[in-house]
C-alpha cells in the first residue's frame, strides 16, 4: 500500500483506526525480539530491593530537603532554587518511579512497588488504576494508532502543543479535570475501552481520593491565605514536569507508527547521569519495550548485550532532538513521513514486507 492510499489517522481508541488495527492484526500482535539466551534473560529479569531502596531514600531526601528549604525561604528569592529541585523531583522523577513501579520491576517486594506507585501517581495527577491499564495497552500496542492511549505527539504534529508540554500546562489541564470528572461522573468510553469492568469502580474510588487531597490542600491554602500549600502539592506538576517531557518526548517522536518492531518506533538515547537517575534509565527505550520486565538498573547491561541488533543510539538528547525536529516539520505536510533508523550490519533486518517501509516517505 502506498502512502497516498493511507487514510487519515484517527487517534480515538474507539474509532476507525481502532477497527482497522484489530482487523489487520496490528492490535495485540506478536512483536520482534532480539534473541537473548534464556539463562541470560532470566538473570537480567531478576529483582532486587537494594538499588530501588537506595534510590528511593535519596528521592525522599531530596523531596523533603528541597521542600524544607523552599518553606524556610518562602517569601524570598532564595526559595527559587529549592523549588527548582523540588519541582523536578515531584513533577518529573515521579514519572519514572510511577512507570517502573507500575511494571513491578523497581523492587522485588511487591508492596514497595505498590506504595511508590500510588505516591508517584498522585504526584503526577494520574489515576493509578486507569494509568496501569493504559500503560499495559501502550506495551501491547506501542504507537499503534487507535489502540495506544499514550501517544504523546500525534500526526500531523501539533508543535505548539508539544512546546507547551514543557510547561506542564496541557497535562495539568487534562489531568486535573480528568480526575474530577472520574470522581463525580465516572469513566468515559475511551477509558472503558482499556479498563476491564471489574476494575472501573476502583478507578473511580482512586480519583475521589486524589480529588479529596487536592481539595484539602486548597482549603489549607485558603485558610492560611498562602500560595505555599499549592506550590508544594499540585503545582509542581506545572513547574517541575519539564524534565519528564524533555526526556520522555524522545521515546517515540518522529519514528514509525503502526509497526510491530520496537526498533522502528522507539529510540534509545545516551544521557548524562543526572538525567538517567531522574529518568531511571528509560533512555534505553528500545530495550525497555522489547523486554519490559528487565528492571531499570539492568537496562545498561541489556543494552550492551543486544545493541548489535538495534539502531545506533543517539549520543545525546540534543542529537536526538536535532534528528527528530526535521521529521516533525515534514510530518506537518506529509503525515506518513517518519524516520527509519539504520540498523548495523550485525542486526536482523526489518521485515519490510510486513511493515510497509519501502514507501518514499520513509527516510534513513
Amino acid at each position: 500500500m502506498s502512502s497516498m492510499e493511507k487514510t487519515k489517522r484517527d487517534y480515538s481508541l474507539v474509532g476507525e483506526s481502532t477497527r482497522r488495527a484489530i482487523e489487520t492484526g496490528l492490535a495485540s500482535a506478536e512483536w520482534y525480539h532480539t534473541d537473548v539466551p534464556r539463562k541470560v534473560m532470566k538473570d537480567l529479569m531478576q529483582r532486587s530491593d537494594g538499588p530501588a531502596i537506595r534510590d528511593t531514600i535519596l528521592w525522599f531526601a531530596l523531596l523533603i530537603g528541597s521542600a524544607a528549604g523552599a518553606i524556610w525561604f518562602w517569601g524570598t528569592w532564595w526559595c527559587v532554587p529549592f523549588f527548582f529541585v523540588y519541582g523536578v523531583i515531584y513533577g518529573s522523577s515521579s514519572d519514572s518511579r510511577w512507570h517502573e513501579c507500575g511494571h513491578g520491576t523497581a523492587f522485588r517486594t511487591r508492596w514497595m512497588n505498590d506504595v511508590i506507585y500510588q505516591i508517584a501517581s498522585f504526584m503526577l495527577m494520574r489515576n493509578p488504576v486507569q494509568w496501569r491499564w493504559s500503560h499495559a495497552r501502550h506495551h501491547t500496542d506501542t504507537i499503534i494508532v487507535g489502540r495506544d492511549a499514550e501517544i504523546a505527539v500525534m500526526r500531523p504534529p501539533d508543535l505548539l502543543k508539544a512546546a507547551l508540554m514543557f510547561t506542564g500546562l496541557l497535562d495539568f489541564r487534562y489531568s486535573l479535570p480528568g480526575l474530577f470528572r472520574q470522581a463525580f461522573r465516572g469513566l468515559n468510553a475511551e477509558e472503558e475501552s482499556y479498563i476491564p469492568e471489574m476494575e472501573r469502580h476502583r478507578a473511580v474510588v482512586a480519583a475521589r481520593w486524589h480529588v479529596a487531597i487536592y481539595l484539602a490542600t486548597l482549603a489549607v491554602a485558603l485558610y492560611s491565605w498562602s500560595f505555599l500549600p499549592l506550590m508544594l502539592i499540585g503545582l509542581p506538576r506545572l513547574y517541575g514536569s519539564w524534565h519528564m517531557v524533555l526526556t520522555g518526548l524522545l521515546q517515540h517522536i518522529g519514528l514509525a507508527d503502526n509497526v510491530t518492531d520496537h526498533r522502528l518506533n522507539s529510540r534509545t538515547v545516551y544521557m548524562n547521569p543526572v538525567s538517567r537517575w531522574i529518568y531511571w534509565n528509560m533512555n534505553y527505550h528500545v530495550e525497555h519495550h522489547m523486554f519490559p520486565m528487565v528492571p531499570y538498573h539492568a537496562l545498561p547491561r541489556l543494552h550492551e548485550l543486544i545493541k548489535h541488533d538495534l539502531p545506533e543510539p543517539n549520543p545525546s538528547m540534543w542529537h536526538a532532538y536535532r534528528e527528530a525536529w526535521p521529521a516533525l516539520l515534514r510530518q506537518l505536510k506529509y503525515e506518513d513521513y517518519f524516520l527509519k533508523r539504520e540498523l548495523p550490519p550485525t542486526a536482523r533486518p526489518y521485515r519490510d514486507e510486513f511493515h510497509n517501509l519501502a514507501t518514499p516517505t520513509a527516510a534513513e
Partner: protein
Amino acid sequence: MADWIEACLVDDVDEEDVIRFDHEGRTFAIYRSPDGQFFATDGLCTHEKVHLADGLVMDDIIECPKHNGRFNYKTGAAKGAPVCVNLATYPVKVEAGTVFIGLD
C-alpha cells in the same frame, strides 16, 4: 480420567524456572519450583496471550514477560492487575526422570 502426556525431562527445567511445552495445537508452561516440585499451567497469559515461558518465576509466582501479570502457578490464581482471569492448571507426575502432565 486424565491422559498422561510426556512433557519434558526433569533436567530440562532449572529450579525456579519454566519452559514451554506444545501439544496438539495447545501450549503449556511447565514449572519447577525452588524446592524441585513440578507444576503445569496453560502456556499463555490470560490477559494478552503472551507465552508465560518467557516470564520470570519467583517462589510460587510466574510473572508474564509483557505486562507484569502475576499468577500463582501452583493454583493458577491471578494475583492482580493487569490479570483478572485465573490460569488453568494441570496435574503433573514425575516418573523415571520424565515429567508428565495430565490432560483431559
